[in-house]
């Protein structure tokens, strides 16, 4: 829930924020609150026994020393992040099953020939994984080493600044999915389908909660922005083709973050007593990531074939020379 915008960096402030999370500015409404017009004298009294009360460090609240009634315990606002919108599944259970089958059949030559027929799907569960989606503008100051302009060393230093606009960039908050899985699935989602409520999820569905507090979430988001900026810098800004030591400092404006839940099918299939895990996007069955067994027999055969062919060629060369 955005209640106002920071006057300095134009980022939306959230309810309960005493300072802007991006630039540290303090919202006007807090600064302009007039503490005193003339001289004022306060003695806080207990509503029960009328005794003068004081702030107690141990309970971190104002306490009456006589009747030990707690007068006011102000909650600090660092709430656990709450999901604001859910993306619906557009791939159903059967679709996910079919997608896995066809994926198993198209993995290439080095997989076991009977993989598609012998693999048994053991588990197929819908999961809504948690993630942040942000928009922001940033003035990015950067330095890096790259091969462009290198002299005796392989590396030469470069620096620069770039204006960047980020639209709908996704940062995973998921515990169930690895970062790699989450980033493989993320292009498959259509954010416009998001709904504020979840329509009757099935019993076996897992709804991931954001298990981080607002302050930690912001650290993760800042980190995500830095990573997103670094990958854009490599594509468009830093000269050269090989990079190292990419340093990024971002001056953000208008950072708007939404907390969303993304649908995915998490599957486990068994092949010869071993379990393999595959995740499929809940909105596009073609986007998936998973592990599959390798056929060592086929690899050995190819290696042997190559060696025999090499020997044969050598023999021919010797015979006809």
């Amino acid at each position, binding site marked *: 829930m955005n209640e106002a915008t920071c006057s*300095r*960096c134009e980022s939306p402030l959230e309810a309960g924020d*005493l*300072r802007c999370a*991006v*630039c*540290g*500015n*303090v919202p006007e409404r*807090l*600064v302009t609150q*007039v*503490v*005193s*017009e*003339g*001289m*004022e*004298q*306060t*003695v*806080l009294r207990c509503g029960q026994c009328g005794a*003068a*009360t*004081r*702030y107690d*460090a*141990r309970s*971190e609240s*104002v306490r009456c020393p006589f009747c030990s009634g707690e*007068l*006011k315990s*102000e909650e*600090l606002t*660092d709430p656990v992040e709450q999901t604001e919108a859910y993306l619906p599944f557009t791939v159903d259970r059967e679709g996910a099953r079919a997608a896995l089958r066809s994926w198993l059949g198209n993995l290439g030559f080095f997989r076991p020939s009977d993989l598609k027929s012998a693999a048994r799907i053991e588990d197929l569960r819908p999961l809504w994984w948690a993630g942040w989606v942000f928009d922001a503008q940033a*003035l990015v*100051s950067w*330095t*890096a*080493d790259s091969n462009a302009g*290198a*002299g*005796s*060393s*392989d*590396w*030469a*230093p*470069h*620096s*620069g*600044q770039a204006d960047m606009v980020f639209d709908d960039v996704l940062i995973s908050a998921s515990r169930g999915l690895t970062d790699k899985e989450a980033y493989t699935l993320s292009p498959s989602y259509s954010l416009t389908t998001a709904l504020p409520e979840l329509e009757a999820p099935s019993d076996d569905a897992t709804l991931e909660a954001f298990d981080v507090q607002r*302050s930690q979430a912001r650290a993760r988001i800042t980190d995500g922005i830095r990573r997103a900026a670094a990958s854009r810098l490599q594509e468009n800004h830093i000269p050269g083709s090989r990079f*190292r*030591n*990419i*340093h990024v*400092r*971002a*001056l953000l404006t208008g950072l708007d973050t939404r907390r969303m839940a993304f649908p995915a099918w998490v599957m486990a299939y068994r092949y010869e007593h071993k379990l393999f895990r595959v995740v499929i996007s809940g909105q596009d069955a073609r986007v998936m990531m998973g592990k599959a067994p390798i056929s060592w027999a086929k690899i050995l055969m190819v290696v042997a074939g190559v060696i025999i062919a090499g020997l044969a060629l050598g023999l021919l060369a010797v015979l006809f020379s």
Partner: protein
Amino acid sequence: MTSPAPHSPALEISCTTCGARVVVEEDLRTAECPYCASPHVVERPPQAGRPDPVFVLAFTLDRDAATSIVKSWIKNRGPFVRSGLKEGVLERTRGVYLPSYLYGARAHANYTAKIGENYTVTVTYTTTDSKGRSVTRTRTETRTEWRDLAGRYERYVTDTLVTASKGIGNAELESVEPFDLRALRRYSPDLLAGWIAEEPSLAGEECRRTAQAEMREDIGVDLAAFMPGDSSTNIRSDVTFSDEVSHLVLLPVWVFALRFSADKDPIRILINGQNGQVGGRLPTSWAKIGGAILFILLALAAIFVAVGLFS
């Protein structure tokens, strides 16, 4: 522009519990009735150059906890502290809300630096082997190529705290930092009830200069980390600030006075009222250090003499 240091005169109020006269000391925001111990929080009329507090960082460490922390801290000082200190008496333990400014700004820096990029070369050299013959060998050496780098750097600086009190200097405040600013609360007089709260007594302009110096120092450290290459040197920067903001925060500090000798001033020890970090140093005794050195020298001399006699 230098505004005069704000000054709050002593006030006299009447206790709302027992009616007795209560004097609110200069530059304090709180007072306790000497007869019935009712805690008062006083809001003085607005005055130029003396802003109202915006935030309070409340105490989480009570008197007992702070006292036991400082006692074990004193006990664990090294053997060379001046004698009598460890047996000293803690006097005038006070929980003080220290006024300080929370600064923030947009920092802009133009920097230049020399960046070192390493590379290895194979060097051929001639040496003599075990049989005295001259042979050529090779070895690899790492060399550094230095290149100039210049650029511009911009970011927000947040969370810079500087003291606004004449009583406790900025170095002393730094010795008990950091404070966890996530626990900031909006100022409200009831958080001060029963504690001592100071009014700011340093001029805003002076605090601003201190804050800028501190922010420049932070940027210097960050710029060194920002440099690419295997090494960097000669980092020069020209830092300016824009969009500066400052807000008055009351910070929780326990102040202890350690009296160790009847004719000397007590030593002040500060404790972070939020996390218990102890700031300050106990003076070392040069006599003790000198004595220890002398003892070691004498012992060495004794050993030499003994060795000389028995050999």
